[in-house]
């Protein structure tokens, strides 16, 4: 008899593939986003099965949660602009130009060939490559933390992580350039039950985010997961319009955007000035430095993700500038 866990794995994998197909083929765009969020949820479960809880956390929080919220906000905006907000179902919101069936077919065949090649390459690859396990395991005592993934992210491959924070910064700069205007949308009325819940949930979410950051040193968690959970607080505040970004708050926001990158680079420079390689932290201070960087990066990530969700730069309102979600 086969292990029932294998059946679970096969069912989960089939469900993920089916959800991917469904998300791309369902007509209603709202249903598409719901299916996509469920797809993210199930991929996170699959990564848990592959013993990658860190990745699962990041995917659930950022890949499914924040991305889903971004898509939903864009859909809402598109429907508002195109005047189809009153309709029950959200079919296409962008104008469609008919594409010859031959082109679509050629594209599909092309993609099929690439996928086939990928599958052949995957099946033909050696079962387990050498990997970096041994190297990481050997270097772990010198990293200052106990959790390998955090060690890799903030010590052994800290350059990658620095660049990643820079990418986030670049994204928020680009979004602020693309969209401008101030929000004058009224606040949604969610009722007293919601108010009571928000009083409980917002502080609880802040605690969980901070806990994830702190636990990252020895268990799955860390700056990105903690930052994403804290960003969820920002998303809630923005969604319910409990907080509306004001032009005067731009300075603080900008400070928060560059905080992570700045502290990260500063620490690297200070370490380098002591005659070491940029991210070779002195062992006795390694944990302190990593926690400092992680803390600042967490704040940056939380504020940046919330700003990416909000979209436009809050500028002083011009006359008749009524363009928002």
């Amino acid at each position, binding site marked *: 008899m086969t292990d029932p866990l*294998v059946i679970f*794995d096969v069912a989960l*994998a*089939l469900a*993920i*593939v089916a959800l*991917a197909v469904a*998300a*791309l083929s369902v007509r209603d*765009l709202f249903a598409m986003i719901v299916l*996509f969020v469920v*797809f*993210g949820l199930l991929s996170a479960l*699959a*990564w848990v*099965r*592959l*013993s*990658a809880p*860190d*990745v699962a956390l*990041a*995917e659930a929080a*950022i*890949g499914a949660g924040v991305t889903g919220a971004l*898509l939903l*906000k*864009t*859909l809402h*905006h598109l429907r508002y*602009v195109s005047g189809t907000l009153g309709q029950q179902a959200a079919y296409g*919101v962008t104008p*469609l130009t008919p*594409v010859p069936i031959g082109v679509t077919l050629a594209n*599909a065949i092309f*993609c*099929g060939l*690439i*996928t086939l090649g*990928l*599958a052949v390459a995957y099946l033909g690859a050696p079962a*387990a*490559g050498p*990997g*970096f*396990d041994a190297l*990481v395991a050997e270097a772990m005592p010198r990293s200052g933390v106990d959790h*390998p993934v955090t060690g*890799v*992210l903030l010590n052994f*491959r800290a350059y990658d*992580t620095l660049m990643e924070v820079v*990418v986030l910064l670049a*994204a928020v700069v*680009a*979004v602020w350039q*693309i*969209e401008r205007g101030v929000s004058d949308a009224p606040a949604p009325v969610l009722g007293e039950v919601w108010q009571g819940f928000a009083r409980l949930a917002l502080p609880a979410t802040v605690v969980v985010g901070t806990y994830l950051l702190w636990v990252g040193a020895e268990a799955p968690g860390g700056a990105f997961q903690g930052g994403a959970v804290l960003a969820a607080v920002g998303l809630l505040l923005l969604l319910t319009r409990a907080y509306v970004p004001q032009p005067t708050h731009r300075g603080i926001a900008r400070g928060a955007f560059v905080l992570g990158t700045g502290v990260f680079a500063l620490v690297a420079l200070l370490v380098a000035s002591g005659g070491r390689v940029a991210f070779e932290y002195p062992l006795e201070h390694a944990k302190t430095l990593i926690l400092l960087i992680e803390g600042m990066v967490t704040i940056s990530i939380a504020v940046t993700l919330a700003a990416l969700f909000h*979209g436009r730069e809050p500028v002083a309102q011009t006359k008749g500038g009524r*363009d928002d979600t």
Partner: protein
Amino acid sequence: MTPDLIYGLCGVAVFGIGLVGALCAQDRLRRVLALKLCSVGAGFLLVVGAWRTPPATPDPVPHALVITGIVVMVSATAVALALIRRLQSLEADDER
């Protein structure tokens, strides 16, 4: 049948589906979503590559790469969606 084989094939399939969607989908929102599916498929392959038969612990380097990839992907998605919103606003202004 081990989890790495099952989820590896699943990752390849998701990547392919995303690729077809990105090239063939008509709606802009759906295309962005299709690209995100591609990135999840690629993430699957990396995580599968890191997997070791329990009780051995998996290789942390690909895990870190996938986490980095997820954050980069959300930045790219945010910029793409901002462009879509702007484009739609401009088109709506043209029609008036």
